[in-house]
């Protein structure tokens, strides 16, 4: 009886919180189509178009811009030759450069890099032409042979589409788990902090815990709400993904549509089961984290790193070579993420599925029990909560978390969309929003402007910052090389960066202004200026630098850039703290980007094999970097 009353109360409290409702269901519902859009970009990099039959080698003429030639890797199967242009009616025109693809077998593959915005239209056009040709040829063949649509040719065509779906599903399976995990965290973390930390801060925990209700009932009601909100968030996200697909809200590729359409109801049930298990794991962890802290302010400081910690294993599916082995199945969160990938690719065996679900369930219950144990600690409800002079409701806590999430969503939708339409325009918009957010955050949270550290640096510190910028560029480049071993694709990504720069123009000063000066100022204002300053009283220097660098890395929205950007962020943070001037961070960032831009313009864009010798410059400059950073701020009179 008590449990039901407690649960009803906790639910009522959550439902009366617009922010919680938005986080629990609203945002995930919107993030679903966003994930699909991301999936569209992601999967199109390896899309396969199919046509023809084994006995019928086909020569196709594909309309595309002259840049398309550089996206196609010539091989025995593909021949790139100048040709005419095919308009929407399939009529050849002769006023543009053409690409002719010769397929000796059943498939041909047109690859491109997802960073190139024009490629999407090119791919869609290729597929449209292929479909038209396939339909016409199929009908002609069927008529000529006197065959019905149920005959072999249809089977062959369907088979080709299946192969396409598997590849596309596997790609989706790499991307979706981290996005789902992020969504689950949105649902669980905020609710956990509200029902546990919030209860402590508002002093309602004492009210509740001095009733006749069993302590276990109090804990169970709170845990149910937290787990429930995680599952609601996850389910809303799944509904967002599949709902937008079903309703045809987004213009996604046929391969992606096939992938999602091919999912059977039982697979969807399985996905929802994974959401439930992940929700339990996240809820247990979130309750544990929320139980350790006494108020929102300190809670928000703990939630950030905890969130990253939980997100990390959900990125395991991104490692293409990693399979769902028994030891992978033991990694919490990672096991379910890997299972998710296999489910979407249609490759999860029943035995593996049962094994993963069993292990994950045990881990979820373990996390839950740990969370309950932590929640039941005496200190959880008393501790320092009644200490004199503590802050009132921390403005930085939930507000900052919400702001962060909103900015992420805005960035995700608007920034990506804008960059698709116009790389330069989108880039300018993104940078402007960074700078504005940095300045606005200081004002909003009422922090003194001095936290931005916009003071003139010593000449020696400025020079060391420039040296550090050059060195970080070299070291980050070595990190790119090294991570290629575990996360293939980074070098191709680097090549795409050079390609993207090429679409802007050949003017080096313009490129340096857009991609070095602008990010150097705008991004530093937000990260090493505003965020590093706002966290000043909440975290010691090094954890603060790490948290800000992590946010900096995530904001770049690329798994390939995560580690190198985190590294650059850490160096910039240390330099700013040691020099006590944001200008040093700006100089470092600017120099780093300038070297990268110049390198991309002048260097070899094509990825190739590398040896240990390639790491030597990075290793030497890493030593120089260490010395330079150590010298920053030395000998300064206090």
């Amino acid at each position, binding site marked *: 009886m008590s449990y*039901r009353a*407690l649960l009803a109360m906790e639910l009522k409290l959550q439902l009366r919180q617009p922010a919680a409702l938005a986080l629990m269901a609203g945002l995930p519902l919107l993030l679903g189509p966003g994930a699909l859009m991301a999936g569209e970009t992601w999967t199109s990099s390896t899309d396969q178009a199919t046509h023809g039959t084994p006995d019928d080698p086909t020569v196709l003429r594909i309309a595309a811009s002259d840049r398309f030639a550089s996206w196609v890797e010539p091989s025995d199967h593909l021949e790139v030759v100048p040709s005419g242009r095919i308009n929407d009616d399939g009529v050849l025109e002769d006023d543009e450069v053409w690409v002719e693809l010769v397929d000796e077998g059943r498939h041909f593959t047109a690859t491109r890099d997802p960073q190139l915005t024009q490629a999407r239209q090119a791919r869609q056009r290729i597929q449209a032409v292929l479909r038209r040709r396939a339909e016409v040829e199929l009908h002609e063949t069927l008529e000529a042979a006197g065959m019905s649509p149920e005959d072999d040719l249809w089977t062959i065509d369907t088979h080709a589409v299946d192969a396409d779906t598997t590849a596309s599903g596997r790609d989706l399976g790499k991307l979706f788990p981290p996005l789902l995990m992020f969504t689950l965290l949105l649902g669980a973390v905020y609710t956990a902090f509200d029902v546990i930390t919030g209860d402590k801060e*508002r002093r309602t925990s004492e009210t509740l815990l001095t009733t006749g209700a069993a302590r276990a009932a109090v804990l169970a009601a709170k845990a149910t709400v937290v787990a429930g909100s995680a599952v609601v968030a996850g389910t809303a996200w799944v509904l967002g993904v599949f709902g937008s697909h079903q309703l045809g809200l987004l213009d996604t590729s046929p391969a992606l549509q096939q992938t999602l359409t091919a999912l059977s109801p039982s697979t969807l049930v399985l996905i929802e089961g994974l959401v439930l298990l992940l929700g339990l794991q996240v809820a247990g962890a979130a309750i544990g984290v929320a139980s350790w802290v006494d108020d929102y302010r300190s809670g928000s400081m703990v939630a950030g790193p905890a969130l990253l910690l939980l997100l990390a294993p959900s990125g395991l599916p991104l490692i293409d070579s990693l399979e769902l082995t028994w030891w992978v199945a033991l990694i919490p969160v990672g096991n379910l993420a890997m299972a998710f990938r296999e489910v979407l690719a249609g490759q999860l065996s029943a035995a593996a599925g049962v094994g993963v679900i069993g292990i994950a369930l045990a881990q979820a219950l373990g996390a839950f029990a740990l969370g309950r144990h932590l929640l039941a600690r005496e200190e959880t409800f008393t501790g320092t909560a009644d200490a004199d002079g503590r802050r009132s409701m921390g403005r930085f806590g939930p507000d900052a978390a919400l702001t962060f999430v909103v900015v992420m969503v805005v960035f995700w939708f608007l920034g990506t969309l804008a960059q698709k339409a116009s790389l330069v325009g989108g880039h300018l918009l993104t940078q402007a929003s960074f700078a504005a957010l940095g300045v606005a955050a200081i004002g909003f949270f009422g922090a003194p402007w001095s936290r931005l550290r916009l003071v003139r640096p010593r000449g020696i510190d400025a020079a060391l910052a420039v040296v550090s910028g050059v060195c970080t560029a070299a070291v980050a480049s070595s990190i790119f090389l090294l991570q290629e071993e575990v996360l293939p694709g980074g070098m191709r990504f680097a090549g795409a960066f050079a390609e993207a720069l090429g679409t802007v123009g050949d003017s080096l000063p313009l490129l340096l202004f857009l991609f070095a000066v602008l990010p150097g100022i705008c991004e530093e204002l937000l990260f090493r200026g505003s965020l590093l300053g706002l966290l000043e009283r909440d975290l010691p220097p090094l954890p603060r630098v790490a948290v800000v660098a992590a946010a900096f890395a995530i904001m770049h929205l690329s798994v390939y850039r995560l580690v190198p950007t985190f590294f650059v962020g850490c160096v910039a943070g240390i330099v700013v703290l040691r020099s006590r001037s944001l200008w040093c961070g700006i100089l470092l960032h600017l120099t780093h980007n300038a070297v990268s831009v110049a390198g991309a313009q002048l260097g070899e864009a094509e990825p190739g094999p590398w040896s240990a010798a390639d790491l030597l410059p990075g290793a030497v400059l890493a030593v120089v970097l260490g010395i330079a950073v150590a010298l920053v701020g030395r000998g300064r009179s206090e």
Partner: protein
Amino acid sequence: MPSPALVADGLVKVFPGPQPVRAVDGVSFSALPGEVFGLLGPNGAGKTTTLRMLVTLLTPDAGRASVAGHDVVSQPDAVRASVGYLATTTGVYGRLTAFEMIETFARIQGVDTPRKRAEELIERFDLSDYRDQRCARLSTGNKQKVSIARAIVHDPPVLVLDEPTTGLDVLVAQTFLGFVEEMREAGKCIIYSTHIMSEVERLCDRIAIIHGGQVLATGTLDELRQQTGEHYLESAFIRLVENSGASS
């Protein structure tokens, strides 16, 4: 003579840390049904920690205590069912209305007719005009009324009130003191923690003066006057605290 409704016997609580704090150091007292027992002491004396042990929020490191015959360590659920606790803050849920707050806690406490009981208490505390207003929007006085209604919703035999008039204006505080007297008439055992001398003089049948985690003296107002040779409670209190400082 009736048996005590509440007994504290040598309660000790030490908060660990680099420099452990012995917040409560051997506190003993007992209180009878129909009695208002005052815990009088300055800030940081150990009053709140003592009360928190009595309502099972904290576990004593040593000593024992019982409420309505139930041991606070071995029978915590039974203790909590027998006690109505009012903390130093109102502790109301801002997102619930006044009525919902009282009705919800009636359900949590297992009251048979929660709605009826909530309506009674809304009437009793003159909250009809604010019945459907969310607690966050109520004045401090009305929040405290809701909090009191919540604390007595299950009609407990023991009330533990921790500095209950803090933040209340004079009129609301007077109403509250009247309520405490009414509860005493109804036979409730009331533990009343405060540092306001006038409240103690008006309400408390017996008083324990607590300082530095220890009970310095226990007795009626007259007994404390006799012990210290001071007429006014404030003077008696200062004398006891000074003597304890001198002896320590």
